[in-house]
């Protein structure tokens, strides 16, 4: 086993996912099988290979990336954005209490 039950619980915690007991078991089995397959990458010697940071780097047509000018422009979407929030309190998003006193 590459991945233990504790690993699954730790990763679910990192990813903010509440999992049922059945999910913990299924994911452990499935992730283990996927990670075992991924082990095949170890067959390749990549010590001299740079990790890719940007696809098509060095392709001139893709490299001509120019950032636009940073000019302030009106962005009056606040009201519309808040309309889609589960618990809006304009101009804020309301959330459960964060700080315990």
């Amino acid at each position, binding site marked *: 086993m590459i*991945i233990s039950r504790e*690993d*699954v619980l*730790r*990763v*679910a915690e*990192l*990813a*903010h*996912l*509440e*999992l049922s007991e059945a*999910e913990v078991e*299924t*994911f452990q089995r*499935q*992730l283990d*099988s*996927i*990670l075992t*397959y*991924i082990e*095949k*990458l*170890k*067959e*390749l010697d*990549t010590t001299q*290979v*740079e*990790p*890719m*940071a*940007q*696809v*098509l780097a060095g*392709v001139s*047509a*893709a490299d*001509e*990336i*120019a*950032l*636009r000018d940073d000019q302030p422009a009106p962005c009056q*979407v606040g009201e*519309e*954005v808040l*309309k*889609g*929030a*589960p*618990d809006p309190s304009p101009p804020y*998003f309301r*959330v*459960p*209490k*964060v700080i315990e006193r």
Partner: protein
Amino acid sequence: MSAAAQWTIDSVRAALGAKKISARELTSEFYTRIERHNPALNAFLTLSPERAFSQADRMDARIARGEPLPALAGVPVAIKDVISTRGVRSTCGSRILENYIPPYDAWAVERLERAGAVLLGKTNCDEFAMGSSNENSAYGPVRNPAAPDRVPGGSSGGSAAAVAAGLAVAALGTDTGGSIRQPGALCGIPAMMPTYGRVSRYGLIAFASSLDRIGPLASSVRDAAAVLGVIAGRDPNDSTSAAAPVPDYLAEMEAQLNGLRIGIPKEYFGEGMDAAVRRKVEAAIELLKRLGCRLVELRMPHTDYAIAAYYIIATAEASSNLARYDGVRYGLRVAGRTLRDMYKKTRGRGFGPEVKRRIMLGTYALSAGYYEDYYLKGQRVRTLIARDFSEAFRQADVIVTPTSPVPAFRLGERTADPLQMYLADIYTVTGSLAGVPGISVPCGKTPEGLPVGLQICGPPFGEARILQVAHNFEKAGGADL
């Protein structure tokens, strides 16, 4: 449902220009078809008649005034539900965005409408575009119009089924590891993934940002080229969108194929390919030879490692991109005692099993102690796969392979083992990792009547070249091999 090829972009323009039908009447005709066939296919999740009819009326007014018609005037199109549409619900096939209404349009959507297209509605897809069968949608699977007991492919299954069933003239899909090309192949229509950066991702709800691309699905190569011509180009809102000029695809693709070098990579013709698929793809290669192409046998030695690299990189990026769904700013919220508890309950209930699996895998690959062995290793292998492609394009003008090792499979047949589902992406994830463009074109049917797709990949920004090959192939009867 054999109406698939009844309307094309050219025939719509001709009919509107000759006043044989109005844009409003045409839009009604498509909604009538959707009403009749969508309950069985489940290709559309949301319809946008208000928006469609007001656009149709705008086009009719232009026609009445005798103004010249834009490229896609009155053409009914469908949009995959991971692409934002202002005022029209965009769920991404997920419960977590069940009631999400975007406050803005994606660049590609804006471009389509500016060119006169009529937006019929939003199409079903695997949740957050994660899947190869459309069975991961929270709103039920899509059925393949060619064989209703089978999947349409995924993740752009709704877009592919809508076009194949004649419920839209063209559609937008998105492709991260094969999600445009594979459903195109399984439903029997041309479907194209452009070069990374060719079409702006602005408004595309992110899955894996270094891989995600928007592209067209249509009932002919010509229509796919016309849509690509409209949506391609530089967009200041996406810093990865390329400034390279957009060629006149419709003109360039008419050139003949004499002497063109067609690369056949040996690694794509090994074990694991269905025998009927192999026969059709070999017949397709024969046809390309008869059209004047020269065959070049290639080696692309890192192909076998692509699935492993892809499922690290794509899930790592997904785990980061999907962190935004936390019940605060949009979408579902499930109440919790504390903020953290609310996050966990919202995400636990809002995401389906495949999305959770990928978030877990990606989080693991990025977590302390594993980053070097998984994520960085994956990125190094990605470099090797991209090199395979640049080496291949020194010897060949395009690369030709099957799109999918299997034709459309039965609903439920492959859901038990996620790894087996991933492995079937072998012919498409390579081009995704390398950033190059690829198109799938129909190349006949299996004895059971299931469509088979031929994939044609080109060098970066080589869209005109692969459209030229696909168009000539289609004109020569490639779809009926």
